[in-house]
């Protein structure tokens, strides 16, 4: 089944007239013989949660790294609509410009907190580092913004100066989340944010994400292989397999009426 013949709406009604905040076109990436991404197009609309699902090795994390400008594609065009600026194709920017853009406008929460946090520094310091990279030089402002971001992530402020290495996995994810939202990013990327957490902590982290999304209307891209997480969080869903997008649509439609054989297999898969 091709997407062009899919009669289902691809957007919820409230987003139909809205310009996308993220537009990626024809993104391709090859690692030696392995094709990680093949002609992938992504569109993300302001305030929505786009869920990306797929099996291990389907290219979803690679795609997220591209969105975070951590990796360069072989082909493709990436535009991020930000108020008052037009940076053109972000893949074509100098590395320094990419770094500054990432620091100010894109937040990310990794599955592995060691990738996103400085374990030997305090939790508040981890949040402050992001503000420092963006140019904040007032100690009092750093403290207050770090406190505010940690509080919004439902992190206990009594432990804000504890090192992440001394915290539980759920707490580490909250610190990552606080770090990601400290500068109110235009785009928040979540790479398997609840994988490895026990179910009760997973639910708490998802609740926090949902509340933040509801209150701040943060645009999120959520990558997960856990359909339950995607079903809970996402407005729209993109299904990936072997580096290609095989199906996308509104979350309810994709889960209730999957069109592609692979999606059907995913949705109906049970242990």
């Amino acid at each position, binding site marked *: 089944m091709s997407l062009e013949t899919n009669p289902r709406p691809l957007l919820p009604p409230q987003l139909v007239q809205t310009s996308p905040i993220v537009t990626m076109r024809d993104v391709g990436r090859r690692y030696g013989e392995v094709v990680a991404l093949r002609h992938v197009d992504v569109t993300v609309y302001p305030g929505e949660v786009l869920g990306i699902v797929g099996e291990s090795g389907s290219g979803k994390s690679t795609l997220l790294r591209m969105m975070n400008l951590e990796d360069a594609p072989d082909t493709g065009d990436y535009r991020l609509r930000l108020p008052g600026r037009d940076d053109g194709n972000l893949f074509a920017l100098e*590395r*320094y410009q990419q*770094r500054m853009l990432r620091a100010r406008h894109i937040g990310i929460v990794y599955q592995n907190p060691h990738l996103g946090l*400085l374990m030997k*520094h*305090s939790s*508040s*310091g981890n949040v*402050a*580092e*992001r503000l*420092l*990279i963006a140019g904040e*030089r*007032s*100690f*009092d402002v*750093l*403290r207050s913004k770090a406190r505010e971001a940690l509080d919004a992530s439902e992190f206990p402020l009594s432990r804000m*100066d504890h090192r992440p290495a001394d915290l539980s996995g759920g707490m580490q994810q909250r610190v990552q989340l606080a770090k990601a939202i400290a500068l109110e990013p235009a785009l928040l990327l979540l790479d398997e944010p609840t994988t490895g957490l026990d179910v009760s902590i997973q639910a708490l982290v998802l609740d926090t994400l949902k509340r933040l999304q509801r209150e701040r209307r943060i645009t999120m891209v959520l990558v997960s292989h856990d359909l339950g997480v995607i079903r809970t969080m996402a407005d729209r869903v993109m299904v990936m397999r072997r580096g290609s997008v095989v199906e996308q649509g509104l979350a309810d439609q994709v889960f209730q009426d999957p069109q592609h054989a692979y999606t059907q297999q995913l949705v109906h898969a049970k242990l």
Partner: protein
Amino acid sequence: MSLKTLTKPWAATSYGFLDASAKREMRRKILKAIAVPGCQMPYASREVPMARGWGTGGLQVTLTLVNPRSVVKVIDQGADDGVNAASIRRFISRVSQAEETWDTLAASIVQSRHRIPEETMTKDQILVLQVPNPEPLRGVEPNISIARQMHADADYGKLWLTLYEQLVKAGRIMQGAAYPSLVNGRHVMTPSPIPRWDVPKLNMARHLTILSAGREKRLFAVPPHTRVEPLVFSDRPYLVEDHARLVCERSGIAGYFMNEIPQDDGSSTFEVSDSNLGIKAIRASEGAPAEIGETWYRNGKFAQ
């Protein structure tokens, strides 16, 4: 044609100990370092008759700059009469016929370990600082390749973060020496382990400062009239050591950086760290001729 006809007759050492190619490389690297203030330049650190870590970087720079008309002062922690300072000074003089001095005002080259003299240096002077660790990012990024990338990107967030953490944990910045400083608004350098007291002396100074690490094989420079700004939060002022009211036990002068000398009864006495300044003050108090030059600090306050 044989190799013998193409080469000069063998001699024990070149002028100034270092061979011509070594000095040519040093001159090129010094010029590059001056062109990009604060940026570390790698060089092939030569063997000198001294152990690595005892000032071989500074010595190689001095041996490159020195000529028979030079007047060389060497200090170690402010003192001219330390064994290491005296040995280096005599060695330089022996291989170059340069004049030796203890007087900052008379020197054309001042090689120093861990201090900048209290008397203001002029545009005709060069300060050579011995540097044990030239990399300000070493504490936050042990991988040299990544650290170089961070310099290229002016990515100093982690360095700022260490200062933030010190303020959080101790309520004040605990970095006592080698305070990271931004040079010319671009590169962060470590100004060698000089105390915080000395860092403002580098800002818009009239003299050229060359900092060299022989063991680490890198040098960098602060050209005259260049901004050197310690990394400091906008609402937490940069503080130097509180030595303003301390009085030198031997010379009686006050308002300069002091060495603390613990006493048997638990108390401390103090001696001015710049030993030649103390000697001049003692001579002046005894009525002997002693010219004390303009100083960077006056009455314990930075004056320039």
